[in-house]
């Protein structure tokens, strides 16, 4: 579904990504692990279309088309979702209203009929149960006064409501206690199907204990230096990133 080839990205002339190659097929769950500052979040931001990055070389194609030409909203409507590491607080904007605006914007893009308020309410009420958030969160302003775990569960709620083809979870596990982590992982696991891809970006392998990744990539200094199966995560857990630094230096 998504094909990243030799991607080089700079922020204000400083090169952050130095030739990333990554291909995700429907049904696969890929994990990218790496220390802070290795470029993991830059990769997810570039895929979802955030401003401020210069692509100096390489390409990202999405079902054969040039993804980099699309606006962030069109990428979302095409089926790419990013769960934010730091979800923003939007005072004064009702969470339900926001979810409905996003849901209907994507329906319009696809030429589908919008859901009216009644239908949307019944839809969202079934979805919110899956992330174990109280319905009262729908009537609050977006992420306003939410705890860290509640914000992340609200991200998962958006994911399962918008039903993307590719879900990128950017350090969704950071700052979560074990219970919240399980809820988030369960949300992802229930949401997996043969048509849907995942890219889970994380600092720690902890969340991967609750998921079943097909492929794990280690990113150091803007490059993927090692790819492998589940065992790679366990090795990182035991030995840290140090043994890979040499590979990165090449």
């Amino acid at each position: 579904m998504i094909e990243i080839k030799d991607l080089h990205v700079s922020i204000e002339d400083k090169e952050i990504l130095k030739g990333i190659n990554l291909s995700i097929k429907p049904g696969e769950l890929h994990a990218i692990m790496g220390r802070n500052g290795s470029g993991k979040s830059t990769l997810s931001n570039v895929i979802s279309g955030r401003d401020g990055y210069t692509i100096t070389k390489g390409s990202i194609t999405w079902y054969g088309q040039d993804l980099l030409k699309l606006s962030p909203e069109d990428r979302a409507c095409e089926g790419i979702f990013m769960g934010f590491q730091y979800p923003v607080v939007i005072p004064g904007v009702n969470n339900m209203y926001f979810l409905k605006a996003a849901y209907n914007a994507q329906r319009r893009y696809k030429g589908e009929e919008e859901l009216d308020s009644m239908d949307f309410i019944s839809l969202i009420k079934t979805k919110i149960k899956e992330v174990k958030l109280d319905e009262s969160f729908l009537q609050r302003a977006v992420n306003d006064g939410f705890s860290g775990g509640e914000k992340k569960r609200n991200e998962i709620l958006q994911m399962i409501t918008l039903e993307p083809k590719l879900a990128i979870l950017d350090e969704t596990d950071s700052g979560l206690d074990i219970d919240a982590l399980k809820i988030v992982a369960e949300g992802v696991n229930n949401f997996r199907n043969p048509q849907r891809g995942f890219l889970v970006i994380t600092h720690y392998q902890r969340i991967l204990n609750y998921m079943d990744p097909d492929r794990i990539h280690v990113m150091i200094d803007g490059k993927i230096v090692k790819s492998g199966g589940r065992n790679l995560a366990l090795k990182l857990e035991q030995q840290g990133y140090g043994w890979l630094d040499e590979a990165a230096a090449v």
Partner: protein
Amino acid sequence: MAKSIDTSAITKHYQREFERLHGNSNGSLTAWRRAALDQFSASGLPSSKQEDWRNLNLGPISGEYFVATPAPELDLFNNLDFKYLPRTPRLVFVNGYFTAELSDLSQLSDEVKINSLTYLLKTDPKQVAKAVLGNTPESTNPFDRLNAAFFNSGVKIDLPARLIDPVTIQLIFITRPTSDNQVFHLRNLINIGSGSQLNLVEQYIGLGELNYFNNVVTDVVVEENGGFECTKIQAETPSGNQLSNTILNQQTDSRSKSLTVSMSGKLVRNNLLLALRGEGAHGDLNGLYLGRHNNVIDNHTLIDHIVPNCTSAELYKGILDENAQAIFNGKIIVQPDAQKTNANQINRNLLLSDKARVHTNPQLEIDADDVKCSHGSTTGELDSDTLFYLRSRGISTAEAQALMVNGFANEVLETISDDATRELVINMVSDWFINKSEIS
């Protein structure tokens, strides 16, 4: 440099007007009016060098000879657009004159005394004299003095003590001038008896394209344990001006909540004094100002903590687009006796264009030592992280911006207690956002 104004010509003009309108009258009210006019003549119009009028160009209302108008012909309001006409008891004024045809007081309790000042000035000037002489403290504001000299309409509302049910009244002031440079001096005198509650919606609606000037003075007294909630909506035309002076006096254990929503207007200047005179009184002072084109909106608020154990909370927010300019000057005074005061003030501004400007100036004057006071002020553009967050969910840039701007305003609008009033104001504000490019 602001253009210099020939003050003596202006004061002479208003003296001539006074002779035309009140030259043949006498009595205590006329004497009081004449004294106010003399004070106005002595001070002249304020200049932007004066502290209270800094940054404000008074050109729109000081460069013209504004003339008082006779009562309008009936056909003037036959074709008014009543998109926002509310349902509950209402008094409608057109060009300053009470119009019974558009008003509806059928659901109003008999216990509430309500009269147009035009009527009272004709039938019982002594009652008006008693009210203004007793209520109104010596004002140093030139426009307040001008209003004292000339006011010929407005409303007098008296709520008796201990009414069981809150009273809701809507005042609608429609301005549709019949020629350029008309001035309307309105005065509202409101007294809320002990333990009673008044919910007031005060709407100013400007129509047409002619230049005009509304000069409004509102005097409110909330007696012991009384309550007052006021939602004032100023929707003047791009060539309409409004200066308003509101004095809100609160006695022991009384509560007030006032919201001033200013949208449009060539020049809008609001002076609001909240005087906490009795212990245990609480006042909420909220405001939302929306400016575009060349609108100038100036809010000067003063919260005066006179006695101990009073609390006040102030939230003013502004959204400014195109060439609009706003001033927020929020002063809090805590007098030496006013121990255990709790006062906080917040002013937030959102600038939607490079040319929009805001001057914000919080002032705290604290002369007591056991108090809690805070203030904060921010001015910024739409947050780019929030915009990206919304877009990353599939929402277009335009829709995302509208969501954010509405969200910014909602924090203030959600303070309105009454559902119907809140809905009315939210609809008016939404329309203001949608009509972005309609009037220019």
